[in-house]
């Protein structure tokens, strides 16, 4: 193996790599524990209030970890909410801390402007449609593209970073009674406690869809090379 020159540019900065994997760990922990918490009441409502005496807009028809929920199943799952809730909130803190650090870095280092904001030449419907078409044709990225995000990638990352994650944090906080007391208008603005819970669930689905597409794209573009770039920062420079 050739010695790695310190001057060789990194595909991803150390900050991007570290925050990417911290967020990955936290997100997976949040996903598993969140699913576990949902099992104790797999029904969703709009507005402020909702319970088994209220008609849900969405009933997942899953077995529950509580015998008070009419699921139609003849058994009750073991209660895992204690540790799930502890881990959920600890992971939420990790997500928020990592996210704040990443946001400040992205803002001041030019990462957002350079890497996430679509280039001026890409900011047209034509370019976006062209990118969608080449994605649909499963065209493998050219070597140059391994050094930059394409326009669809940029838009979906922007959506995840600036819309979905902030929404997740907002709707999550809105379910906290302490937060509700301190910032009641943040809950009212969302449409109430149960609406916040429903939105928290819906945004989770969007984030899981993103995760699936994200991983599928990594596999399509070359799993080993993309993983190496996100772990070590090394990638084949565009000039080679």
């Amino acid at each position, binding site marked *: 193996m050739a010695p790695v020159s*310190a001057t060789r540019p990194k595909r991803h900065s150390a900050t991007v790599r570290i925050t990417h994997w911290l967020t990955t760990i936290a997100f997976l922990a949040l996903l598993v524990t969140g699913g576990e*918490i*949902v099992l*104790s*009441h797999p*029904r969703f409502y709009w507005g*402020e*209030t*909702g*319970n*088994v*005496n*209220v008609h849900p807009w969405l009933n997942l028809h899953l077995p529950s970890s*509580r*015998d*008070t929920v009419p699921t139609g199943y003849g058994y009750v799952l073991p209660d895992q*909410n*204690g*540790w799930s*809730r*502890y*881990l959920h*909130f*600890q*992971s*939420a*803190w*990790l997500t928020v801390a990592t996210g704040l650090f990443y946001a400040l870095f992205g803002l001041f280092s030019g990462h957002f402007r350079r890497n996430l904001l679509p280039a001026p030449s890409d900011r047209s419907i034509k370019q976006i449609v062209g990118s969608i078409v080449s994605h649909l044709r499963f065209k493998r990225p050219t070597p140059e593209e391994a050094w930059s995000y394409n326009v669809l990638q940029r838009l979906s990352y922007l959506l995840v970073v600036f819309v979905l994650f902030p929404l997740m944090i907002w709707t999550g906080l809105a*379910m*906290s*009674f*302490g*937060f*509700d*007391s*301190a910032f*009641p208008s943040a*809950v009212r603005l969302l449409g109430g*406690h*149960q609406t916040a*819970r429903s939105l928290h669930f819906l945004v989770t689905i969007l984030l899981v869809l993103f995760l699936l597409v994200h991983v599928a794209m990594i596999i399509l573009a070359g799993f080993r090379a993309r993983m190496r770039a996100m772990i070590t920062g090394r990638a084949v420079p565009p000039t080679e």
Partner: protein
Amino acid sequence: MSKISRRKLITTGVAAVAGASGLGVAAKVAKAHGLIPPDSGGLYGVGETFTYAAQRLLARHAMAREFPRSEISQNPFANEVDPLGDEFKRLQAAGFADWRLTVDGMAARPTNFSLAEIKNFPMSSQVTMIGCEEGWTYIAEWKGVPLSYILDRVGTLSQVRYVVYRSIQPDWWESIDMADALHPQTLVATGMNGADLPVPFGGPMRLRVPRQLGYKSVKYITHLTLTDNLKSFGKGTGGANSDGGYAWYAGI
């Protein structure tokens, strides 16, 4: 490695030492200001401490949202409880005339109150939401005596940091810190939606802590203990729920 300059190494070292000692100082300050929850040990203690400290620092006096009467839930859900024992049934048969709330521990005048005495204290009412950690909620009008009034009556000693409250049901108890114990919305509730508190909802007497999840609003309370330390209660984490693996602070 040669690219890492001496200056960078020294800066990083100084930052690491400053960070570590900063954390140490922060932990000391937090402890002195009562920002460390009793279940701060263990795997999830860090997240739990952050949550508790953040809410106590930023929202100590915040008031739970109150709703117009029109938003009172038509079909509130009475969460299931363990079967009520013989003692409860005996008291219930007598219309709870002999129900007593004992207050002991670090009080200048430990005593006990009958249900009738409690109901003669100045009452407060609130239309607030109760929410279970499972995710469901309902809104009701709660009527009761502010816990702070009872604490005043018995003369709370200055070193008291927690109020431990026990249900008539065996091994069912919880505790709150003084921020919640003295909070104007924390009630010893005896009424709900304009009537006596129904038994399925905790009647004749339950604690209402509207800034925390439902499991802190213990039903059928008979006993308050004022203390400066939770170590000697149960496993030492401050409640039956936290002894059973749930968070002691349920403001989230």
